């Protein structure tokens, strides 16, 4: 408690009323504008606490009169966005893939939407730019297992490959070595023959004979494969599981049967269409 407020003789001003060993301090109050500003912030804080969530409580926090929450605001913003987009999304849903590609406005919307959906759902296996990796096809080149037209891409995305979807793309490569269809020596011979198709290994009569008996039904007599069956072209330089002799031997001995989920069960049709159009422009679309 201040002991005694008195006037300072020299300056004519009040002291603070405190005294330390005979030393007294002049009272120098804060500037008025500063005090007003301070009280204004106090008032603001009280009003704010009443209107907005402010104080932690045993089981949560005070909600405030306005009932504001950032989550509700996000939900509202998302709803607004969905509504804004819905005009385009509805048009994409009702249009055919060819119609979308002929309408620059829809096409650009589909590209942007497709890119976004690709980054969320597809890049985990196929890479950010569609470059793929061993076992996961490159979507930017012109080599397609199941066809590179926008319709074929759409169907592949919708139903997937070798899964439980009824319309999924279904073919199986036999396990020539494991199931005893071919002896290891025969597998070696046909491996060399397959390599020779792209100008690398030694063409040999035994390999050619085995190929004619076992492989042409899917990979065709010329080895160029068949997109109806998802059987790859063996004559080009693109190998999904590796193009060296050991990898191809392994492929023939144990077989390779890659799988892809049916995205039609998870994504709506408009997103599937946008994805197909986006993937088609990655570089290899036909």
């Amino acid at each position, binding site marked *: 408690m201040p002991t005694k407020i008195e006037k300072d003789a*020299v*300056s*004519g*001003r009040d002291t603070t009323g405190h005294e330390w060993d005979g030393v007294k301090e*002049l009272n*120098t109050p804060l*500037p008025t504008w500063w005090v007003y500003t301070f009280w204004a912030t106090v008032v603001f804080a009280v009003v704010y606490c009443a209107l907005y969530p402010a104080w932690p409580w045993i089981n949560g926090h005070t909600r405030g009169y306005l009932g504001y929450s950032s989550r509700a605001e996000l939900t509202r913003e998302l709803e607004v966005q969905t509504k804004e987009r819905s005009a385009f999304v509805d048009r994409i849903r009702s249009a055919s893939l060819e119609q979308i*590609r*002929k*309408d*620059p406005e829809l*096409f*650009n919307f589909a*590209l942007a939407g497709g890119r976004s959906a690709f980054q969320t759902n597809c890049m985990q296996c196929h*890479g*950010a*730019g*569609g*470059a793929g990796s061993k076992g996961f096809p*490159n979507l*930017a*080149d*012109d*080599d397609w297992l199941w066809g590179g037209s926008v319709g074929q891409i759409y169907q592949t995305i919708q139903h997937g490959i070798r899964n439980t979807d009824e319309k999924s793309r279904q073919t199986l490569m036999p396990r020539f070595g494991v199931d005893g269809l071919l002896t290891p020596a025969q597998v070696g011979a046909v491996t060399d023959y397959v390599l020779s198709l792209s100008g690398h290994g030694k063409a040999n009569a035994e390999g050619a004979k085995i190929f004619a008996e076992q492989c042409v039904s899917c990979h065709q007599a010329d080895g160029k494969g068949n997109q109806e069956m998802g059987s790859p*072209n063996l004559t*080009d*330089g*693109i190998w999904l599981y590796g193009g060296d002799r050991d990898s191809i031997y392994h492929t023939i001995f144990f077989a390779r049967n890659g799988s892809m989920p049916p995205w039609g069960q998870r994504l709506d049709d408009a997103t599937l269409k946008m994805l197909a159009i986006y993937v088609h*422009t*990655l*570089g*290899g*679309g036909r």
Partner: protein
Amino acid sequence: MPMDGGDFYATRVKVYPRAVSGRWRSVKWAVLSLLLGIYYLVPWLRWDRGPGAPSQAILLDLDGRRGWIFDVVIWPQEVYFVTGILILGAIGLFLATSLFGRVWCGFACPQTVWTDLFMLVERLIEGDRNQRMRLDHEPLSAAKAVRKVAKHAAWLLIAAATGGAWVFYYVDAPTTLLKIVRGEASLEIYFFIGLLTATTYLLAGWAREQVCTYMCPWPRFQAAMLDEQSVIVSYQKQRGEPRGKHKAGASWENRGDCVDCRLCVNVCPTGIDIRDGQQLECIGCGLCVDACNETMDKVDRPRGLIRWDTLARQQARERGTTVPWRPVRPRTILYAAVFAVVAVVMLGAFVLRSATDLSVQRDRSPNFVRLSSGDVRNSYTVKISNKSQQPRNFRLAVTGLPRAAVTIANIADDANHTPTLTVHADAVGTFRVLVTVPANQAPTGSQPIEFVAADPDNQQSATHGSVFVGPPR
């Protein structure tokens, strides 16, 4: 605590400037009308740019990221033109200050112009200096309340118009005014009108000369541009002193011409006494010159006791000689030269600016693609800016890479064939470009190449360097 027992905080002594008329007052009215006229009316100037483009002569469209200035359209990446104008403004201010002292402060500064306007309103409603002082000392009465309310209402109205006019530089003025009146404008618009209404009202109505004395940095360092050859408002001490009251008909022997009427002090918008010499608070408006001339006419002495003069001439006059004014001196030559150089550079940049801009970004994922034929392909994101007001067609080519085939992947429908790229008026076209090289021509590693976008119609073209990456051997 100052040793003299004074206060830490100087209490403001309210300034009640008296009305004055004369040459400099007229100049100030003219400049005020011109500047306020420009400020309030320019957003309403219309300019026909054809369909699809705004019809406002000067529009800084922040949402659309374009500055429309008559037939010139400034894109965000050309914002250096604004920098250039600011540099020119600064150097021009230095030059004007070294020649004529604080003409900017006294005549053209928005703080001065709006304060002058607010003082005019104040004078019309509350009367001149003496009436205003009396009114402020009166106890509150109905008559006083009416005058005060009327004054503040008028001030707020002007302030709101000022904030409104500011907003109109950024949005279409006629449609936005309607929206504002109907309460349909966006929150940002109301916020900025409110903000500028508040600053105008507070700075021109309440803070006034305190802005110049305490808030503005310019008075602190403008003295560095002044020298003894700068024309400033000055009191001719050798002629005025010793000052004193003068009775009509009395002799002028052994006394100065200053009759100590204090008119120069009473008209001063910053409340200083010019007879104390050059001081920080003086904004160089010249109103004391008008006031003193009025008095000199009355007492029948020559005008110019307070006048625009240089320090050098004043000192010479004290010695009984005269020297000419030297406007051309190293300082002014330097400022003028820098001004000219910057102006020429900016003008050159402006005249030579292209209506076409090209930017190329190589896709790195995948780094390159090997096609089934063995050919190697790189993909690029190409952006062509068409800064003109017509849609244009560009031909895209690649140099530095023999037998390269250029195709566009993202054109609807006829993809992969025609490399003629259409870009809308005043827009950026984004294209995914595939460059394919036959297997035996593919470079090992990275090879520099150049993209060329040419407009066959007007021979304009733009280039952008990039690289083509082939597989390592």
